[in-house]
């Protein structure tokens, strides 16, 4: 083991360090590669956190103490524990302490079991990630860590034992770059046992400063700076959907230093000398600042020195060369954990952040334990009850004090001896009474309440899980409730925060129509109506949904024309995969062949346009679509095949990287086998395919999962139907990866027409037009940005297509129209009306135009552009100005219309949710324009809404914009420069804010308050370009600021923090990633299920839980209140009124079932009415069914009923002076208390039923059986001589007094409730009462009709009778 000598000097590094130290804050880090850290100034070695991520809470040793601690931190458990302990003191106890402990220990035990299972799950997931493997440079010294890892002795022993058990299977194999002969991932260390090589290590062992070797399809284990890639230009593609939810590929670049870019081999890695000054770990996904400083031009080291270099390790004896320069590094050079490498053979990167320092983890936030709102409020009530309990116990104590004072002082000693001797001092006896009082009254906080709530919520979860309306047929996924205790929160949601991509939309862009040269293609009803147009029709009340489109005919014509035109190779000819089918395209393309009758006069407004010209326009149009874009072709197949062959060499059973490929191989094989099968039997195909798919998923999941694997699986499934069923008509499948799905849709559409984009390099593009390949040289790309709203590409057209330099431009219609050459007015008019039609159908439009450039004009412009693009100051504005010069005099080609397919039922669902009073905020990573488009399609935004847009990156401007909005909406001042239209009170408003603007607003306290205040005025809010953390912040802001119940719904890992921040997190499963589903409280398969989940289940569960808890409190109040009255008759001696068995069984058996059934099966109205009248949902939002007021009402009602029952029997017993039996027997206290107990139990049960809306057979059965149980209990228990209530049952049942008393007490007890409920429901109804009445009248009407029909059928009815019935 060699270590760097101390005399090694490294001036540049030291200089840099000392320079830095002036500005460095504590958390900034320097990561060194092959340079010893200067001892005096540098940071401590190895202080970085490990890459191991632990989300589990316990391990096997800490489980018991930690879990118990957690459990007893809950106030309720602590309370019951104290009570149990009190119960063990003989001086105060009234009963067996074991009995008191039993319920508590049951609860604790069950909870512990539940926690254990949950934590085991977390362990497995942690393990899955931590033991995933990647390739890491080994046999190299990571100078950022001390040479010898400091291990305590026992850890070392443990390690050795572990190593011993790991079987070694080493099969040496030659490989140029990495060594994967070891199955066992090795532990990275600084020991050097040979040449540096890339070895497999587990993710958890990745350290800061390690060189990572990532292959195509690999997930990145930690945040790392790209040093080099397989691509010439040092680019690589990454999939970021686990971070930001976007499924497109993003380009990342290596550090722009030539010497580093050239690193290819492990050896070169171990020789590179540089260090990185990185900013402190933070959660910003879109920003990163660091700089890389290269120490020397190490690549010039000659081979002989190289040996030396290697052995001495880090260049001892070399003259370190001067550091050249520091290169800034930004987010584009950084790979983040959970990125997946795509389209790139390999990437070498150096880790800078590990474990909890990585951006994804910093973004994910704490896993919160959620409690529902009612539960939280209930805790306040529990505290209140606790105070009442203390007061009651105090009353007893004071009473004891007073009565013993009276006894000892006034009436002599007789009674003291006879009745209550040995009382001790007054103080002590009072105190003991106080403690006994606590025990007697402890049931005011019923332990069974908590158990019952758990039970009921379990059942509610069961119902949610089993709801067929939320069962996704295709994905075979039910709604999975992961947190059981939030079902009541579902009924109180006021704000829904929704992700857009994959949540509202399917993230599938479909090319639907286009307008070329003033003629619309694709409006033949082929792909059905758009969501928006269906919504529009519904709003207008039209119901003629039957569009008589003969699809087969269209298709046959299309196919025929297509085959006439060319032999499809890349184009799909499967009607199920095409959203744009119009035979006219080909007819117009081939004007010679086309028959005149094919095109009818309706569209032919441009008769002056001659056929040839139209054909060339169409040709130009689709060429443009195939050329003008930034799409890349996914070449993963290429790599797959490579690794496939590699795999066949390597041994089997290997996990990790290769398995990823093997999965895909299976899938590929499947596809092939499918193709074979497809010829034979088509009908059974889908079925078998599904089955095989399942088995594949099972195989996959059985592998030790990798993030990369998971995402790979998902990426295949995220392509939706197209990947599930394979397009068999494709000869070659081209997988397009685009920055925006729109582009991919356009390119695919062009491909299917016959203009296939095949490949691109930096300089050229290959396009296949009708079976012939053409190469376009790319001269310039004028990129899209939000201010330009257009994108252009300048290409040299191949000579075979006419040659010349052509500018293709696509962009927003107004932008393009401004830049058109004059003389196209008719065309513009026609196109723009087409565009309007498209938009009103909810389609996203783009206008396309081109321009043929004069060579000399282009050359002069190109020079200018070159100048501008290398300018140092104001480069971007200069480029824009330059672009402006050439993007003019365009020739209009037409417009495209794309539908971003909304998920099924989204607009309707949103409308219903809105009707329920829920405000919907969309938080998306999308661009502003895209987000607004979707907003319209999803009916979040409507045309008559006023949109208030706040965007920009400067704090001042953003705040000014917000002030404007605030001024206009709240204070009513209209600022002079603002829009002229005044605000009308019935205007609806939508607020759209950009992510960068949002960052400023969230930072500022005042702005936050303003947003909160404004949010009441906004019907819709859309936040675009927001980071995951911002999503969480917005949710947090509203949740805390508005004190509202919030729901966040999303599908990607970027939604995790939002899902966790909201009161209820809902994950859409089956689209992207699994993280959202993991973090969520409910998993649903589609957005539209939210309707049923909230409006029906949420509403029911809210009502159920609310009613149940209130009834629970009520029934303990009614049970206990009379106890306090009786105490005056016990001389406050804390005697127990009821027989102890009643006390024990009251909550456990006698009254529990109706409450639980109420909480489980009650329905305010049936599901169809819940959905039909969503406004009843707002009861939950307004918290009308569980509040302090209601609690007080139930509490007082409990007291009233308790007093009625008690005093009924009190007067019966006192006025008859203890003789109530017809046989003249005198009564005992047990008879008195048993009559009260029986009546209270019956009353409590009836009361719960009275509060039940939905009397199904279970309710009937339960109420009847409860009453039967209580009476038979009294009889059976009273049959034993030993029982304290021996004979009481028979006595009471035989006494008229008891029955009369009971009937009277129940009637009087219910009277106020009955009257108030009636008056409230009839004269002061809320929406629910009215809907229930509507249901009733509907039912009556229905019955009338059926009765009438019955009578008619019997034919014994005269017309007058019919009239009578009708009236």
């Amino acid at each position: 083991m060699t270590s760097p000598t101390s005399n090694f000097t490294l001036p540049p590094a030291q200089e840099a360090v000392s320079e830095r130290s002036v500005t460095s804050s504590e958390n900034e880090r320097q990561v060194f590669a092959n340079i010893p850290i200067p001892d005096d100034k540098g940071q401590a070695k190895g202080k970085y956190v490990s890459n191991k991520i632990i989300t589990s809470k316990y391990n096997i040793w800490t489980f018991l103490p930690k879990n118990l601690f957690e459990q007893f931190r809950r106030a309720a458990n602590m309370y019951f524990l104290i009570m149990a302990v009190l119960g063990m003191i003989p001086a105060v106890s009234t009963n067996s302490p074991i009995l008191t402990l039993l319920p508590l220990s049951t609860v604790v035990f069950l909870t512990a079991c539940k926690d254990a299972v949950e934590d085991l799950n977390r362990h497995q997931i942690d393990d899955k990630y931590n033991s995933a493997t990647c390739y890491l440079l080994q046999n190299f010294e990571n100078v950022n860590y001390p040479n010898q890892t400091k291990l305590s002795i026992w850890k070392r022993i443990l390690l050795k034992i572990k190593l011993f058990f790991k079987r070694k299977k080493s099969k040496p194999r030659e490989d140029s770059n990495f060594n994967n002969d070891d199955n066992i991932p090795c532990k990275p260390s600084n020991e050097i046992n040979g040449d540096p090589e890339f070895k497999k290590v587990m993710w958890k062992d990745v350290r800061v400063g390690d060189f990572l070797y990532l292959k195509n399809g690999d997930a990145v284990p930690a945040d790392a700076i790209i040093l080099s890639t397989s691509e010439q230009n040092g680019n690589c593609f990454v999939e970021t959907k686990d971070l930001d939810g976007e499924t497109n590929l993003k380009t990342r670049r290596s550090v722009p230093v030539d010497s580093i870019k050239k690193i290819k081999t492990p050896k070169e890695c171990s020789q590179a000398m540089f260090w990185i000054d990185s900013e402190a770990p933070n959660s910003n996904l879109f920003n990163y600042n660091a700089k890389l400083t290269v120490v020397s031009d190490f690549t010039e080291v000659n081979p002989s020195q190289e040996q030396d270099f290697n052995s001495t390790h880090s260049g001892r004896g070399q003259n370190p060369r001067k550091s050249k320069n520091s290169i800034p590094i930004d987010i584009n050079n950084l790979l983040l954990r959970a990125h997946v490498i795509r389209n790139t053979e390999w990437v070498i990167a150096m880790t800078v952040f590990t474990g909890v320092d990585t951006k994804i983890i910093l973004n994910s936030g704490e896993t919160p334990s959620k409690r529902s709102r009612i539960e939280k409020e209930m805790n306040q009530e529990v505290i209140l009850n606790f105070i009442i309990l203390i007061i009651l116990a105090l009353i007893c104590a004071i009473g004891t004090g007073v009565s013993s004072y009276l006894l000892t002082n006034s009436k002599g000693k007789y009674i003291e001896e006879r009745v209550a001797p040995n009382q001790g001092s007054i103080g002590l006896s009072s105190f003991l009474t106080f403690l006994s009082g606590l025990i007697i009254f402890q049931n005011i906080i019923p332990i069974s309440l908590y158990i019952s709530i758990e039970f009921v919520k379990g059942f509610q979860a069961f119902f949610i899980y089993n709801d067929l309306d939320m069962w996704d047929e295709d994905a075979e996924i039910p709604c999975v409730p992961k947190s059981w205790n939030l079902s009541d929160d579902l009924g109180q949601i006021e704000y829904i925060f929704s992700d857009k991509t994959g949540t509202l939309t399917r993230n599938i862009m479909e090319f639907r129509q286009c307008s070329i040269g003033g003629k619309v293609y694709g409006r033949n009803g082929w792909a059905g109506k758009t969501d928006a147009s269906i919504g529009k029709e519904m709003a207008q009340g039209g119901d003629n949904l039957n569009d008589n489109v003969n699809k087969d005919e269209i298709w046959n014509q299309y196919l025929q024309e297509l085959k006439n035109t060319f032999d499809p190779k890349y184009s799909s000819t499967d009607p199920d995969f095409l959203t744009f089918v119009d035979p006219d395209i080909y007819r117009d393309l081939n004007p010679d062949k086309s028959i005149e009758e094919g095109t009818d006069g309706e569209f032919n407004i441009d008769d002056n346009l001659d056929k040839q010209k139209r054909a060339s326009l169409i040709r130009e149009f689709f060429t443009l679509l195939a050329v003008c874009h930034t799409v890349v072709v996914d070449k993963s197949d290429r790599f797959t095949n490579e690794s496939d062959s590699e795999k066949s060499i390597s041994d089997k059973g290997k996990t990790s990287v290769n398995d990823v490929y093997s999965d895909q191989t299976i899938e590929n094989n499947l596809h092939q086998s499918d193709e074979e099968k497809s010829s034979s039997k088509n009908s059974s195909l889908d079925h078998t395919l599904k089955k095989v798919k399942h088995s594949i998923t099972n195989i996959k999941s059985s592998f030790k999962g990798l993030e990369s694997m998971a995402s790979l699986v998902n990426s295949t499934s995220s392509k939706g139907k197209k990947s599930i069923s394979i397009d068999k008509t494709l000869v070659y499948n081209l997988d397009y990866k685009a920055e925006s799905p729109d582009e991919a849709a356009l390119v695919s559409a062009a491909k299917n027409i016959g203009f296939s984009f095949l490949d691109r390099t930096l300089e050229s593009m290959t396009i296949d037009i009708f079976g012939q390949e053409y190469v376009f040289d790319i001269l310039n790309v004028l990129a899209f940005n939000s201010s330009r709203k257009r994108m252009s590409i300048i290409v040299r057209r191949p000579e075979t297509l006419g040659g010349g330099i052509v500018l293709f431009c696509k962009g927003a219609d107004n932008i393009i129209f401004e830049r058109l050459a004059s003389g196209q007015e008719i065309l513009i008019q026609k196109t723009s009306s087409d565009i309007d039609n498209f938009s009103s159908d909810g389609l996203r439009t783009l206008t396309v135009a081109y321009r043929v450039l004069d060579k000399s004009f282009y050359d002069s412009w190109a020079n200018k552009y070159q100048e501008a693009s290398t300018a140092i100051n104001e480069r971007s504005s200069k480029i824009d100005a330059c672009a402006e010069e050439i993007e003019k005099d365009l020739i209009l080609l037409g417009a495209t219309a794309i539908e971003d397919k909304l998920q099924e039922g989204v607009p309707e669902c949103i409308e219903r949710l809105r009707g329920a009073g829920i405000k919907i905020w969309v938080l998306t990573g999308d661009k502003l324009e895209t987000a607004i488009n979707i907003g319209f399609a999803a009916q979040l935004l409507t045309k008559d809404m006023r949109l208030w847009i706040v965007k920009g990156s400067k704090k001042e401007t953003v705040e000014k914009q917000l002030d404007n909005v605030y001024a206009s909406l709240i204070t009513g001042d209209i600022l002079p420069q603002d829009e002229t239209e005044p605000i009308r009170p019935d205007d609806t408003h939508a607020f759209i804010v950009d992510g960068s603007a949002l960052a400023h607003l969230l930072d500022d306290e005042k702005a936050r308050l303003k947003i909160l205040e404004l949010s009441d005025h906004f019907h819709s809010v859309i936040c675009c370009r927001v980071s995951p953390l911002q999503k969480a912040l917005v949710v947090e802001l509203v949740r805390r600021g508005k004190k509202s119940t919030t729901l966040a719904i999303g599908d990607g890992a970027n939604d995790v923090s939002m899902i966790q921040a909201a009161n209820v997190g809902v994950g859409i499963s089956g689209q992207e990633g699994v993280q959202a589903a993991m973090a969520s409280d409910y998993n649903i398969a589609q957005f539209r299920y939210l309707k049923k989940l909230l409006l029906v289940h949420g509403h029911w569960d809210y009502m159920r839980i609310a009613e149940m808890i209130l009834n629970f409190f009520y029934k303990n109040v009614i049970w206990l209140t009379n106890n306090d009255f009786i105490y005056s008759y016990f001389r406050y001696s804390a005697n127990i009124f009821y027989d102890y068995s009643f006390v024990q069984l009251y909550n456990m058996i006698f009254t529990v079932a109706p409450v639980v059934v109420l909480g489980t099966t009650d329905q305010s109205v049936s599901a169809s009415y819940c959905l039909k009248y969503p406004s009843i949902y707002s009861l939950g939002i307004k918290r009308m069914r569980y509040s302090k007021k209601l609690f007080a009402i139930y509490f007082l009602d409990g007291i009233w009923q308790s007093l009625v029952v008690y005093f009924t029997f009190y007067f019966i017993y006192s006025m008859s002076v203890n003789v109530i039996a017809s046989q003249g027997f005198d009564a005992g206290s047990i008879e008195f208390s048993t009559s009260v107990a029986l009546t209270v139990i019956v009353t409590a049960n009836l009361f719960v039923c009275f509060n039940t809306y939905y009397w199904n057979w279970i309710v009937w059965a339960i109420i009847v059986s409860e009453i039967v149980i209580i009476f038979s209990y009294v009889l059976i228990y009273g049959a034993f001589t030993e029982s304290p209530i021996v004979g009481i049952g028979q006595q009471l049942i035989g006494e008229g007094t008891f029955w009369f008393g009971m009937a009277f007490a129940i009637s009087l007890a219910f009277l106020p409730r009955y009257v108030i409920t009636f008056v409230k429901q009839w004269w002061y109804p809320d929406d629910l009462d009215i809907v229930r009445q509507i249901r009733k009248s509907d039912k009556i009407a229905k019955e009338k009709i059926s009765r009438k029909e019955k009578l008619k059928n019997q034919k014994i009815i005269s017309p007058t009778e019919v009239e009578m019935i009708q009236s």
Partner: protein
Amino acid sequence: MAPETKSREPANTAFKQQRLKAWQPILTPKTVLPTFFIVGVIFAPLGGLLLWASNSVTELSIDYTYCDSRASNFPNYTNVPSEFISATFPQVSSPQQYMSDIKWSREVVATEEFKYTNSGVWRCHLQFRVPSELKPPLFIYYRLTNFYQNHRSYVKSFNANQLKGLAVPADQLKTSCNPMAVSNDNSSKIIYPCGLIANSIFNDTISNLTLTQNADGSKANDTYVLVSKGISWPSDRQKYGPTSYTPDQIVPPPDWANAYPNGTYTADSPPPDLSTDELFQVWMRTAGLPDFRKLYSRNDTTALQAGLYDVSIDYRFPVTRYGGTKAFVLSTVSFLGGKNSFLGLAYIAVGIACVVLGAIFTARHLYKPRKLGDHTYLSWNNPQGHTNGN
């Protein structure tokens, strides 16, 4: 896609899909208003019936607490102050007919039970008139006030096994019968029956209810037979049995000592057989309220003739020390037990209240009718309600 993909399609059952058939009652005038009238129509007459039953009970209660100090010496009788008397004779319109005849007198006697002490006890003679014949069954009660039989340390102070007849050892009694488990002297013998309740048994004796004068004024000397059998609940009798202790193991409770020689049980004065001592059983059934009656004796067969009666009570049970009173009660019962006008009045009151409420609501309903299931009441149809998506 979720990893485990067996078909998890939920079953389409009414229960799982929450489509169980159910009655969904709502409160409408059509259903509510009749209930008020029905309850009123049932309750008010029922109340009348109950009141009538209560009023049919004859009850005479004479508080003799101060008989030992305020009555004149036997055989002179003085009137009992009216505050000590409560009496209802349903057949008699004017209370004067019997009030003036309620008198008391006292004498010192050496009674059977206190024969082992030298001191005598007061014997109270109560004289009262029964204005009309009382039909059997007829009951004699004693009534105590301000006696907290339900005090926590009192009510728990007994041992069920000992009462049942088992020879429970002393150490087991100490917890249940504390502080009356063993005797205070050196012998530390077991107290039988142990505990505070047993010790404090009501030990006045009520005897010799004798007709001294017939209704027509003629003299008579006719003792009305009253037995202290059948006065405890049959179920209670199972709790008691003859003891298995030998007399030398046990001593009577301190307050019983006077009834036994030297305060001990002997073969001649054995411990009582609790299974037949119904007075003891009645006492052990602790009352719920501090003002209570306990059955002392009864006659189920013979009618009590009208006339002047005399009853003698041996005055032993001290009540003035704790501020209590004791009374002699002669009563018949109705099917509701003792005299109790509460239920009748309560039923009438509730019945009337229901009718009144029903009337008010009917008036309101007629004045301002509402249609069932009218959509216009929904909040979104009101201008001040929130606007919905439409």
